[in-house]
């Protein structure tokens, strides 16, 4: 039973670590937004093109954050190690 508790608690810590990539994702997205606002201020007539390019860039940069979220969800709700351990016990 203690082993199972250890596995579950380590999985929760791993989920928290996987979510730490949000720091860098946010830095990257803020860089994209700053550049886009800068270039819109410099060339207001190109605002529409810049805005669509900015959204695509934001989506691309967000992918790593989403992957971290998925890893965290898998760690907590569908952890493969827990079922392996339960299989080992029985």
């Amino acid at each position, binding site marked *: 039973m203690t082993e199972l508790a250890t596995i579950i608690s380590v999985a929760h810590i791993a989920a928290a670590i996987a979510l730490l990539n949000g720091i860098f994702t946010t830095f990257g997205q803020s860089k994209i937004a700053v550049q886009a606002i800068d270039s819109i201020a410099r060339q207001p007539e190109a605002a529409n093109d810049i805005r669509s390019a900015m959204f695509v860039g934001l989506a691309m940069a967000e992918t790593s954050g*989403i992957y971290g*979220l998925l890893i965290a*969800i898998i760690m907590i709700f569908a952890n493969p190690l827990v079922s392996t351990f339960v299989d080992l016990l029985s």
Partner: protein
Amino acid sequence: MLNVENLRVLNLWGLEIWITETVVNTWIIMAVLIALALVVRIRLRRFKKIPRGFQNAVEAVIETFDKFSSGTLGEKLSYISPWFFTVFVFILSSALFSTFGLRSPAADWTTTFAMAFASFFLMFFMGLRHRKGAYLRSYFEPSPIFFPLNLVGELAKPISLSFRLFGNMLSGTIILTLYYGLMPLYAQIGIPALLHAFFDIVFGAIQAYIFVIISLMYVRGAAT
């Protein structure tokens, strides 16, 4: 709300078919969209040269999307833009679906993967149709040694496309479920409307736009 509930299992000739919550919600959305399309079709039977009122609104929506997609795709490829309009409307309405307190179909990976795989198949088909052998040869560039790398890069496209939409929709679902589960009853009046507006409507619209524009860019990259 976190798990996708399985409502019923059909047994067809030894083949198990699971009717989950996602399937039922997708049917509801399909019925609403089909009914809307029929209403628009019937109202537009008396087609006028100079649009007024209802016809004007419908034409404005379609023209905006057509301009957007032909600006991204180019005039030659813009004949596939109706498909992407359908995808856009479906993703947007499935995001808006969770404002009714029901589970959005896009918060299930099967839905988003099906849509991303359709985009991927369309990309492959358009590449073959417009560039024929040159498209297949592009997998072996700059040298045949790079074929496995190119293949992995292509196969990562539907996966990242589907996970992006799924993750965004699921995060909204999780946050709202946590809010409804943890907060006392008096805090559940009014405040969830703001959360719904942010996580379902704003994120849903942005993610539908991003899904469509990235699919369009893939198609254009394959076909020109």
